[in-house]
């Protein structure tokens, strides 16, 4: 039983994910965890810590070192009736499995005219700020949000981590689950009930400008909002939570109230989730916008050497600057 250790408790996001996985495995014997080093080691971030000990090697599987193999075998397991939860060790290592994700996981439901379910969850620790080497700090969510047949979400708090991972696993559609690795160790209380998986959340109510973020940037956006408040600007912060599908009603409602929107993510700006949010909002709230939708994102370069990442990543200063620019219209 895991509730006693989770709901109402103050947990790190890492622990909350671990408890959420544990709960899903307890609730459904078809749930499997698979990936590189997820067994004895408990994953390089310890998210699956103790699961192999408690559920056995048949349900917590250390796979050979091959991402296409991990996703491809998960597809076969799903066809056989299992619910695989695949761990990709780091964001930059999902690409060897990209073909199996976009051409198989995303397509098999359509290929089979809806007769085959793909209840696969692909967990990806993502984002930067941890002083890592190349390929360990990326934000590839936009690639997946473009692909029909995939649902893409990201948690920003331990509570969402605990609940959203369970909802993702329970989903009969494939979910790419992005975990903000640099927030793994931040603590928060686990709420006693979840929001719907694909609903955005008002993380801070405000009236002057809406700042929409997700994953690691929600904390940063809230920090920016706090600073702005001191300077008398009332910033509303949205935690998008679901990147595909987007919760447009919540986004539009906020923008209609504030008339201004700044979208924030670590991912590259070009052809990204923020491009889509901007494109939809300018179309669906054309007359409500008092300023163009602005974006604060990673620059369109390779993720920089870690000694430059603090500056390169969106931060409070750059968000405040965008808020000011938005208000200046």
């Amino acid at each position: 039983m895991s509730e006693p250790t989770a709901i109402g408790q103050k947990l790190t996001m890492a622990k909350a994910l671990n408890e959420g996985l544990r709960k899903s495995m307890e609730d459904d014997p078809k749930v499997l965890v698979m990936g590189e080093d997820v067994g004895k080691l408990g994953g390089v971030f310890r998210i699956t810590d103790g699961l192999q000990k408690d559920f056995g090697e048949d349900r917590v599987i250390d796979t050979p070192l091959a991402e296409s193999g991990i996703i491809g075998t998960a597809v076969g397991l799903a066809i056989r009736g299992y619910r695989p939860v695949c761990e990709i060790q780091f964001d930059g290592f999902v690409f060897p499995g990209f073909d199996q994700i976009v051409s198989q996981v995303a397509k098999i439901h359509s290929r089979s005219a809806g007769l085959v379910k793909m209840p696969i969850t692909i967990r990806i620790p993502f984002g930067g700020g941890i002083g890592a080497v190349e390929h360990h700090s990326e934000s590839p969510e936009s690639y997946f949000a473009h692909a029909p047949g995939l649902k893409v979400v990201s948690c920003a708090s331990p509570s969402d981590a605990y609940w959203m991972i369970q909802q993702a696993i329970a989903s009969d559609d494939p979910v790419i689950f992005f975990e903000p690795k640099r927030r793994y160790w931040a603590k928060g209380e686990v709420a006693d009930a979840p929001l719907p998986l694909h609903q955005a959340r008002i993380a801070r109510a405000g009236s002057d400008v809406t700042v929409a973020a997700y994953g690691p940037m929600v904390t940063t956006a809230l920090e920016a909002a706090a600073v702005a408040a001191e300077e008398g600007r009332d910033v509303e912060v949205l935690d998008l939570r679901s990147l595909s599908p987007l919760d447009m009603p919540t986004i539009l409602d906020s923008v209609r109230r504030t008339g201004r929107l700044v979208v924030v993510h670590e991912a590259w700006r070009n052809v990204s989730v923020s491009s889509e949010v901007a494109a939809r909002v300018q179309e669906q709230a054309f007359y409500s916008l008092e300023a163009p939708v602005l974006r604060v994102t990673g620059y369109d370069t390779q993720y920089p050497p870690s000694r430059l990442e603090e500056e390169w990543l969106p931060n409070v200063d750059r968000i405040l600057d965008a808020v000011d620019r938005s208000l200046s219209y």
Partner: protein
Amino acid sequence: MSEHVHAVHPEPDMVQLLTPEGQRVEHPDYPLDITDEQIAALYRDLVLVRRIDTEAIALQRQGELGLWASLLGQEAAQIGAGRALRPHDMAFPSYREHGVAWCRDVDPLTLLGLFRGTNLGGFSPYEHNFNTYTIVIGAQTLHAAGYAMGVVRDGAVGTGDPDRDTAVLTFFGDGASSQGDVNEAFVFSAAGNLPVVFFCQNNQWAISEPVTTQSRIPLYQRARGFGFPGVRVDGNDVLASLAVTRKALDDARNAQGPTLIEAFTYRMNPHTTSDDPTRYRLGAEAETWKLKDPIARVKAYLTRNAQLPHDFFDGVEAESQRLAEHVRTGCRALPNPTPASPFDALFEDMPDELREQRDEFVDFVASIDEEVHAR
């Protein structure tokens, strides 16, 4: 080309149980006791799947199909492998396994939707334990390995209970053997000792590329590198294909792990109806392979050795006519996809934004149809 120094020679140790001339031969490792009636049944299978193929090609010429991938020449490999399966075994085909589908009791019309463009596959793998066709080369071999991992977790290997023990059979080509996915499937299956059989139809060509472009040694030897057995079988010999696949599936069910079977055969037709093989291979090659025809040798054997009802061959021919008629009329009657179908099939749980797109599209199509009728 400086990079191609080795050639692939047919292996001396290729398993054969029926010569091209129709002589029954024995192989120490693959004893097969089979009655003439059973051989006659295989003959019927061979003739009927070839007929399906012939009809499909004709339908494509008439514009009823957008494309067809012919199995001509590969009937024996596919019928031998397909008939080695038990009902609860699972098969993961590529896109050319019409003969295997036949053995799984999949109505040929079920396969035509993909090629006619009325669906993307559109049938349930569960109904006949036969997966939808997979077009991305090699991808299905990992699905088979994963399915086999599930079989292991279900405790459905090595119990000795024939109704419980389950094997997985997956199909791919000589060209596919170069794909990372196929080799990763070998890795997962060997390391996991999975109940999966890899059936590689080496039809000598990957579109325009000869098998030497992929490998300088016989493909069945690939398995050695991963630590499981590989065997080359005469893919134009239905008896050998049956015996070798049966043995491999039995081993899989008995927790003996994976086997790679290379069925040595030939793609008698173009790669697909869009291909023009005259650009890259000599007709003479096909001529020599005609002498190894998978059906002729069975007919030769039966006429010489079997006591069959006098009207057996006529009966098969008549049945083949009826089947052709079924395919011809059934193909034209296949329902067109509804405008809503791509949207409805995408998810189990459809997001609102997609529902809006669906309604917009459905209205749009309706509006065109009105225009059309208006005219």
